[in-house]
């Protein structure tokens, strides 16, 4: 039972959805009863809200922030019924998630302002960078764009082979120099080649690295810098890939990658399990970066453009292990 099936994104399983609805009404119903006509919220209800948010990896700091915002709204507006309360709860959380800006559209068929539009993909080990690039390549190609891949993960064993297989699946060309090559040189070559071929989109894969390894983070800064020497302003987008099952450490990851390469967007992967990836709320709000994509499976079309309200709805559903 996948995360997005639960909210009716794919096949609906009516029975299960009904069960989920009940538990959702449970929390919100109580929340409504407790504060209807009052100007404060009961501790017990806030405790329950806290549980929902914390168990979704939203984190204590952001959870307290959300609760504070709701208390302030309630004190000011004195909401009366569950429907209204339901609405403000969602609104307050959605407000924390930054929206995508026009210069960097998430939709695959949107026009880019630059040609080539260079996207660099970064993240810690095992979050799904290469898979995300494979899916992006395929989506852009299907939207009629010409795509070029750059295999700048020259460190991990067989990473180049892995990306190559994705490039064959998506039927897009790839620039590679093999394992052990200088990743900055690969990135440079890729962007230069895209420029001469007139490609629309360039996707540059990088090796996974833990954000506390300074020398590896410096390497990333260099990879980014050399691309700008070929095409003005490149990379135009730096996507940090986060694993939805990661807990509070994702915040440290986002901060470190921001200071090294100034990330412009997030991709949240592995949402097809039971993890909710709530930490992105705090990251998006604190670092002011939008969530752009979510990964919901291993198939090539399992990368969706992020939708704020579907994501928030999913937070309030029960965790169900089928």
């Amino acid at each position: 039972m996948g995360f997005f099936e639960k909210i009716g994104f794919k096949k609906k399983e009516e029975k299960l959805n009904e069960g989920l609805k009940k538990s959702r009404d449970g929390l919100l119903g109580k929340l409504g009863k407790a504060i209807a006509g009052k100007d404060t919220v009961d501790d017990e209800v806030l405790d329950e809200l806290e549980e929902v948010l914390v168990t979704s990896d939203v984190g204590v700091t952001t959870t307290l922030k959300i609760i504070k915002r709701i208390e302030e709204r309630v004190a000011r507006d004195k909401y009366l019924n569950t429907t209204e309360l339901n609405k403000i709860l969602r609104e307050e959380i959605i407000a924390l998630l930054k929206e995508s800006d026009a210069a960097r559209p998430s939709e695959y068929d949107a026009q880019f302002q630059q040609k080539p539009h260079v996207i660099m993909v970064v993240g810690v080990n095992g979050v799904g960078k290469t898979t995300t690039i494979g899916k992006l390549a395929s989506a852009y190609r299907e939207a009629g764009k010409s795509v070029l891949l750059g295999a700048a993960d020259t460190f991990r064993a067989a990473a180049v082979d892995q990306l190559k297989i994705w490039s064959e699946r998506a039927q897009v060309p790839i620039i590679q120099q093999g394992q052990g090559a200088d990743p900055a040189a690969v990135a440079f070559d890729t962007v230069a080649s895209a420029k001469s071929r007139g490609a629309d989109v360039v996707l540059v894969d990088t090796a996974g690295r833990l954000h506390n390894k300074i020398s590896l983070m410096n390497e990333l800064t260099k990879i980014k810098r050399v691309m700008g020497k070929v095409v003005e302003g490149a990379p135009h987008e730096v996507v940090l890939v986060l694993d939805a099952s990661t807990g509070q450490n994702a915040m440290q990851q986002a901060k470190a990658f921001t200071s090294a390469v100034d990330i412009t967007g997030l991709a949240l992967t592995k949402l097809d399990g039971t993890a909710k990836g709530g930490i992105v709320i705090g990251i998006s709000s604190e670092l002011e970066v939008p969530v752009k994509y979510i990964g919901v499976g291993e198939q090539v079309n399992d990368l969706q453009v992020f939708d704020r309200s579907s994501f928030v709805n999913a937070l309030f559903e029960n965790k169900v292990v089928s």
Partner: protein
Amino acid sequence: MFEDLSTKLQSTFKSLSGQANITELNIADSIREIRRALLDADVNYEVAKEFTRKVKDEALNAKVLQSVSPGQQFTKIIYDELTHILGQEKEEIRFATTPPTVILIAGLQGSGKTTFAGKLAKLLKDQKHSPMLAAADVYRPAAIEQLKTLAGQIDVPVFSLEEKNAVKVAKGALAEARKNACDVLIIDTAGRMHVDENMMNEVAEIKDTVNPNEILFVVDSMTGQDAVNTAREFDTRIDFDGVVLTKLDGDTRGGAALSIRTVVDKPIKFMSTGEKLDAISAFYPDRMAQRILGMGDVVSLVEKAQQEFDQDQAQQLQDKIRTDSFDLNDFYKQIQQIKKMGSLSDLAGMIPGISQQIKDVEISDDALKPIEAIISSMTPEERSEPKILNAARKRRIAKGSGTSVREVNDLMKQFSQMKKMMKTMTKMSKMGRAMQGLKNLYKQGKV
């Protein structure tokens, strides 16, 4: 981001000093702090709740000791409870009475199974076993290539099939291991979501087919609240024997370890701490407890220092400092001692308080290299009598060590400052005694 828990507790306990017992009322703040610290460390919500309840009961029954502050005592109670849950002693792999021993590795995508399989193979090979690896991840593009590359680096055979059938790979590998007299077979499987029915059936079928002696569940130490769901589901389906925590070279608190230990009663057997194939070690519950609480790895540091630092040499060193005959030869020896203790950043990370301060600063092991090079480029005479260094000698040394005259000057300046400082310290307090005192403090968990 995180404050040291014991510091926080110290302040919440200010009001408590002078009172004979810990009471429900005066620990309410502290309990809240503990719960918060656990949640910040990614301990599961329910687990954290249950844990704080237990600690509270324990604390209420404890007498306030005179010798330590209530904050320290409370920290000790938490630490002991954490260590208790994380496991009492080291747990090892169970080998088959008749080889080959079959080890099955399973876990979510990206948890680090393949890298761990390579590390385990190397560890076993170093222990004089003859391991074989089976590439049963038939789905992820180039997963087999990755395992083959790793295996090539340590010269361990890999069994794989063209056919995309993981059960057949496992079965074939077992026959091949028997044929080639390999005494351990390590089966690397594809990453799978615990909610993926087909994939969970597959791993269960592999288990039934090869009947492993040891099933290891690999978990990313950065995992958040969901760790309990995945661990529970994998345990229900394949009843694993042990847990492997990976990516502990990051800066995560690793609260998932506590969550998993609480919901499934299986030991944590290995920790994986880097991308190199020898970055693997047994699991130490006490160190993990300190990590979750942000206490710094005090015990390991003391142990390491005791192991590596030769007592006789230390005595000689002290005498030399006292008589002012400490020279560059001794300094060089000291650098070698420090290097034996491990990487500089590892050492610094183990010191409480410092671990937080330096978390953004990487101490390169290369920092010592120019110093070593400069000293190595000196004549024995220059080393024991640095005063004789004139401009010509310095130029020669700089050239020989690939450094600059300025670097040589800097080193000489630092050396003389250090010498002065050491002398003052010895005079002041008989350094030996002070060091011993410090060690005792560490042991009692006061620092």
